[in-house]
């Protein structure tokens, strides 16, 4: 997969990861997302930060400063209630898109 990630996709990945792992800092998030994608996703990890800011501005996640495992100052992100609701919506929207694209691709094969 190319380095350019569909905007909505990265957002959903971040939200889902936060949902499953709880509060997490940027590095941890990036690591986890790459882990889950099992090499399918080639992500410039820097891209994550504008996305995090965007989600924060939408009030889907919130951040606070904390101390990491290795005792360094780091910013931790966590889901808000609004963000939790949003995951379901985003996921549904994404499924619809996939289903739709699926049909087109199948049609094209026939």
């Amino acid at each position, binding site marked *: 997969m190319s380095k350019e990630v569909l905007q909505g996709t990265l957002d959903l990945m971040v939200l889902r990861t936060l949902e499953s792992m709880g509060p997490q800092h940027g590095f941890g998030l990036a690591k986890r997302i790459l882990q889950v994608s099992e090499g399918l996703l080639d992500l*410039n990890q*820097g891209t994550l930060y*504008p996305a995090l800011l965007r989600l924060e501005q939408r009030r889907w996640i919130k951040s606070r400063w904390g101390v990491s495992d290795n005792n*360094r100052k780091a910013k931790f992100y966590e889901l808000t209630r609004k963000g939790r609701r949003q995951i379901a919506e985003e996921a549904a929207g994404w499924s619809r898109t996939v289903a739709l694209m699926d049909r087109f691709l199948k049609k094209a094969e026939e």
Partner: protein
Amino acid sequence: MIERLLNLLRRRRLDRELDVELRYHLGSLEAEYRTRGLSVNEARLAARRDFGGVIQTQEAYRDQRGIPMLETLWRDIRFSLRSMRRTPVVTLAVIATLAIGIGANTAIFSVVNGVLIKPLPYPDSDRLITMSHSAPGVKVADVSSASFLYLTEREQNQTFEGVGLLSQGTATVTGRGEPEVVRRLSVTPEILPILRIAPLLGRYFSESDCAFGSRNTLVLTYGYWQRRFGGDPAAVGQSLTLDGELWSIIGVMPRAFRFLDRPVDVILPIRIDRSRVTVGGFFIPSIARLKPGVTLEQASADIKRLIPIAIESFPLGPGATRQQSQNSRLGPNLRPLKQDVVGNAGNTLWVLMGTIGFVLLIACANVANLILARTEGRRQELSIRAALGAGRTRIARQILTENVVLSLTGGLLAIGVAYGSLRLLLAFAPASLPRLEEIAIDPTVLLFAFGLSLFSGLLFGAIAVKRYARPRYSAAFHSGTRWSSGSRERIHARAILVVAQVALALVLLICAGLMIRTFQQLNDVNPGFAKPGEVQTMQVTIPQASLPDMELTARKQNQILDRIASLPGLTSAAYMTDVPMGGGVTADLLTPEGKVLRPGETPRSVQTRFLSPGLFGALGIPLVRGRDLTWADLYEKRAVVLISQELARLEWGSPEKALGKRLRGSSAADEWKEIIGVVGDVRDRGLNQPVTPTVYFPVLGQRVYNNPAYVFRSVTYVIRSPRTGTPAFLDEIRKAVWAVDSNLPLVNVRTMSDILDESMARTSFTLVMLAIAGAMALLLGVIGIYGVISYAVSQRTREVGIRIALGAESGQVRSMFVRQGLVLTAVGVAVGLGGAVALTRWMASLLFEVSPLDPVTYVAVSVVLIVAATLASYLPSRRATRIDPIDALRAE
């Protein structure tokens, strides 16, 4: 959105936070790679690779955080301020030019706004109209209104919320210290409700206050209440002696109340005796308020319908016939009230606004030139920016931002300039300019100044952008090349600016020149009276209540005159109703004895004046034929008149033929009067107006104006003496009047020179304004030419050096540059002449006996401009001849 705006303010802290976050991320990545056994360097590189561009991340993050456009703008502005500091002289020159240009425009605009644009200071003032009528049958365009029309219109109209009559005059207040003349406004009960102004204290006239025979009531204006009653609320209920009668005060108007730009002290009711109203009695002003949604046309149709009804409903005056009233073809002449208040001030003001706008354009051209020169110095910087990847729009935006920052700074200072020049302007403005009190720097004016600044910034910014925004990557690398074709192009841009400047300056100078010629012509006009500086005038009114008898009134006026005449150093003295150019208008339709009007011919309207013997001598009006009035004529009420030369010529062919002929006014009840003398013509309505045909009656007499007998109680004494203008002389005159009656106030104390100056005030005002604008334009134009030639000299240093080395004479070198300047000027003058021909006809109404295409002005102005331009190009060209060829060639 608000959060993003706030983020703009806490940029620094947010940047630091992001830095910590990113560093943590990179550090963690590095640490991971280290645990996998990579060296420090390898780990760092790997971490960077995984992370991607740190700078790009920061940029993307910042864009997401704030509002990208605003942030760039802010950066551009800060950069602009920095680069302005780097070239302080150019920056100051630009800002000062703009401050003056925009400031002058703002000042004039505040006048235009206050006088012409702002609505009248009454609620829903667009529905206020002047209720006038016209009588084309007797060639009178405006007869105002009359009681019989008013009564019919107020009772039977379908299109008005209210119709009211008003009249203005003076009254004498006695019994409160020194006698005082106050300005009186008389109104029917509808007037103040029409204007929608409620009294501050007490109440306003009710219908019963305006009923005929009701007790005397009056309302004070705020100013008079403050002045004479110290703002005491107990004034309401007190009484005031006006022309010898007691009036009780029932109310006070609010401070903001202005009556159509005319000063008023007291407001009295008009009490109409309906049983005595006849068809006639015109020239009483009337105003009305339209019902919502009614157009002027609908209202006119309504009035047209009512006029025949009005004529039928009232008895005719003595000597009048129904046929006469039909022949006058009375009709509606309604117009917005604002039009009457503003009058013809619009002409002058729009011409001023236009010229001052021209000055700003010229100033912008100069500024554009300076900006071009400055941007020229930054070509390298711009080229490097372009080479480093700044797009065309990015550079254009930067240049525009810089220029708008410059122009807005200029605009800010301009408000100060406008404030100062407005005070100066108002100090010089003719008193006849309407609504002076409403002129102020208000939000509309500020918005105008802002818009103008933005506009000029974008205007000259666009010129700079057009020249420099196209990235020329190569230019950065041969910066010093003076041979590149680019410089020729840039000279071209400047040349166009200079041509435009010269053309604009020429138009303005021609306007100013035409005004100077007008002023000259006016000064050459003979007003009809001699040595106005020697003549003192002042008005004295003997109230009817204090001396009802007509003959005794005339005797008393005579007595005052005798007292004045006995003063030392007096040449002559007399009195009359209204002095020439004094503003008073009395007129009648003339009926020469034995004259039968041809079909379609209308009776001539003539001015009427009432006077004492000796008046013509005192004013210096020559007696052409016949004799002057005598006191015997006056007291024996002989049926005699004098007429002006022009009237004699028009009606009888010559002064000789007019002598002994008889005439009377429009009323058949009037007495035939014999012409005993013909006197010189007077330009009664102003120097720029034709002479006025006039009939002069004795101040006491009988059977004139449909009156069985008359005396004029308000007369103006005309006193000729070499001592006129000294305070001691005025004091002696006052004492002489008060020796006869200490209750008589003196008003309108002025010399005939004052009156003459007042009648020329608007012309002199326009002249001064245009002269200032013209001088500014000339100066700016000359600076423009000087700048371009200087620039050309500096650009061609090397070429000139070679020429001199090859043996060119210094005269040849000089003339090369002067020629260049002259070519530009010639083109500018040609364009300007064309522009002037097209534009000056707009100012025709301000001119007097000067054609808008006056050849003298056009030639003189062109010559002045060409001489100035020659000088402006000669000065820098001298520098070229001092070029040392060796230095010039080495300079590269």
